[in-house]
């Protein structure tokens, strides 16, 4: 298992380098200009000057190489400096965003908390809701609960967040006035009151996001439970005189969780990636919003860095899913 993991990790390096190159080329080819959002009143010559100041004049391979050096060599130094108080990175140029002229990683770090709070909570909530639904739907297959579950999850899946988000805002913020419609990223949770506030502002985005994730996860859970409920070992467990609860929640669940856990693990990069539309609707301003904003502003260093971090997470969690599979299912042995 360990060598499997290490080998995959080593293999991941060239894969990721290749991915970063592809992303870079793609971004290069994509039409668009970092000056698009500068008002039309600014004349072209000035824009040209501004472009040059961003380093856009240099040839492509050089810019790619620069990015590689900045991301893989300088940024880690910054991190080390930050934790150890050393000064390796002093005076070296970091990956700089074109929009804000500030280091990309600083902004990313700034954005992570709210994304984790909202998208992460939604994921957790979705898991907490979806698993019982899936389990019970499978246990009582074709019961009204199961039918209803299918119906709700399908509707949940087919309603885009730009609609459901606005709908809950209109209902809960405008009509009822229960929750704020705009997420306050400056809120510091340090007291009960601020915690309640945080909960209030999180409820709606979490609800909208969780609905979608729940829809998918509960389907998976149900299918997996159905596969296992008819296995022979379930009968053995019953024959031992175990209670229904133990039979279903220990014996069957443990087996059914194997594929579901890996599905869950594979979904985690998406948490870091944020939920673009939902973040936009509720003004959560997390990573997703950062990415879409950067794309619209053609802030290539930002887009490149964010997508690459995302790629790293995907590759990493792919690996984690595989490893988890091996851990959860003793029959699987890599090597």
């Amino acid at each position, binding site marked *: 298992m360990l060598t499997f993991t290490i080998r995959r990790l080593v293999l991941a390096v060239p894969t990721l380098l290749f991915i970063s190159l592809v992303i870079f080329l793609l971004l290069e080819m994509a039409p*668009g200009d970092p000056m698009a*959002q500068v008002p039309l009143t600014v004349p072209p010559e000035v824009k040209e000057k501004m472009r040059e100041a961003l380093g856009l004049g240099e040839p492509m391979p050089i810019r790619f190489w620069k990015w590689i050096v900045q991301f893989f060599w300088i940024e880690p130094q910054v991190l080390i400096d930050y934790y150890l108080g050393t000064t390796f990175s002093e005076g070296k140029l970091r990956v700089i965003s074109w929009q804000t002229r500030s280091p990309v990683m600083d902004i990313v770090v700034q954005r992570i908390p709210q994304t984790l709070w909202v998208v992460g909570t939604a994921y957790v909530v979705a898991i907490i809701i979806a698993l019982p639904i899936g389990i019970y739907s499978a246990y009582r297959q074709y019961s009204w609960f199961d039918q209803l579950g299918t119906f709700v999850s399908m509707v949940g899946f087919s309603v885009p967040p730009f609609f459901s988000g606005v709908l809950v805002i209109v209902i809960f913020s405008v009509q009822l006035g229960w929750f704020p419609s705009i997420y306050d990223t400056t809120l510091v949770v340090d007291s009960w009151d601020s915690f309640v506030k945080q909960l209030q502002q999180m409820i709606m985005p979490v609800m909208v996001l969780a609905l979608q994730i729940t829809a998918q996860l509960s389907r998976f859970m149900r299918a997996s439970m159905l596969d296992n409920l008819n296995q022979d070992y379930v009968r053995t467990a019953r024959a031992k005189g175990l209670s229904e609860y133990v039979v279903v929640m220990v014996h069957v669940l443990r087996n059914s969780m194997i594929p579901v856990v890996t599905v869950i693990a594979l979904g985690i990069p998406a948490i870091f990636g944020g939920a673009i539309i939902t973040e936009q609707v509720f003004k959560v301003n997390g990573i997703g919003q950062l990415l879409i904003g950067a*794309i619209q502003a053609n802030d290539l260093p930002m887009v490149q860095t964010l997508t690459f971090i995302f790629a790293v997470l995907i590759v990493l969690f792919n690996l984690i899913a595989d490893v988890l599979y091996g851990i959860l299912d003793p029959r699987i042995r890599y090597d």
Partner: protein
Amino acid sequence: ERGSDGNVSIIYWQAPSILNPFLSGGTKDVESASLVIEPLARYNQDGVMVPFLASDIPTVSNGGVSEDLTQITWKIAPGITWSDGTPFTSADVKFTADYCMHPEGGCAQLTKFDGVTSVETPDDMTVVVTFDKPTPFPYGPFVGGESPIIQKAQFENCMGAKAPECTTENFGPIGTGPFVVTEFKPNDVITMAANENYRDPAKPAFATLTFKGGGDATAAGRAVMETGEFDYAWNLQLAPEVIAQMEAGGKGTPVAGFGPLVERIMLNQTNASPDLPEGERSTAKHPHPFLQDPAVYKAMSMAIDRPLLVEIGYGKAGQVTCNWVPAPAAVNSSTFSCDTQDIAGANKLLDDAGIVDTNGDGVREKDGVPLKVVYQTSTNAVRQDFQALIKEWWSQIGIETELRNLNASVFFGGDPGSPDTFQKFYADVEMYANTFNGTDPQSYLGNGLCDKAPKPESQWQGENISRFCNEEFDKLHGELTQTADADKRAEIARRLNDIMVENGGMIPLVHRGRLSAHANTLGGVVLNVWDSELWNAADWYRKTGS
């Protein structure tokens, strides 16, 4: 009294990414920065200059501007300090000019310093700006939200190529304005606090300010007018019904103001047919097969029901206009009238010109070329409604329209590699809005000059989007640059406007205002379209009793 009214919150649906307007130029950045850093003078809600950091506005009559129009002398008002307590001096003003004019800085406001040869500081309170030629309108540098003064002490090490590395400075400039930055989260939110050293001890009334960015106009409007979470929302480009519905929420009021912003249809004077080889498409080499025919463009204009467009798209925030430059009022020409739709008249005009449907397909032909146009614009709900309506109207006069909408960041991005930019204009007509800063239209009118047409040789850069070329226009514009007298200037401007519209460079549609909304409890808001909307944030206060 300063700080007595708690917190005020502002929402911009575009989030500011930097607080240094010299490095960005985006309206969102300029306006958010205007709470912190200030220019010597600003335009007020009527487009009239008022002194801010200067003691008065220099003019020829008061001797502040030299007779030969090459020099302007600013006197700094006494007693102004930076928010860190240090005194504000002419050195800071000179530094600002140096900073922006640095060749490697990539300053977004460089045009403000057009023609400036030197900035001198005879003493701590005086600034003398010298131009290379007579400049009838010398109020480019240091006037308006785009050209504020930054502190020399803070930015000294951020000149030229180093500018982008000064993150702390760019995110938290020290200013003279009513507020100071406490935290800046790029593209997200800014928190500010009242400036302890602000020149008026009673202002600002608010102790803190939250400036939230991101989302969409609907949400911003809703947050001010329906849920009351925010006090001020900027630029609500929304359908009038939506605004009305929000207003019914009772928590806020929309306010509109009109600058020179005009939504127009540009008519391509050159042929954009995809059959032409790359490099010759949309260039002066191939004139447009029918759009230069007065009958065609006049008919196209007559077929449009402008009042309806206003009603559907902008409501209170729009007015019918037939002009390229409808504001300031002095330059608004009254030559044309276009507020009634005249389909029959348009048809007649075309029939009389011999442009008729010869093959019975419902589309007219001119010299065998069918009147089919590609009509492009950026993606935006109102523009798409306009496209649909105008397509319908044009079809009634025998012109077939193919609609195309393009991602705004591609359309307005100047990437010469993309065929979809508005400068390349690979279409017959395109619709967008344009405006200018301040009150002087001279350089804006220059957008109609023949040599400003985008072409492959200039990497498709250039402001003369419709490739309009008219000798008389060019000559008249030359005259404008030499004239100082305000009335005379206005008259020339009106004539330039008329030439452009008369000769089919564009079809102006709607004079667009800026529609913002403020909470009913927020007092002191004066909407200003000539400068930053937040220009008088120092005067804002919380209305009591509500």
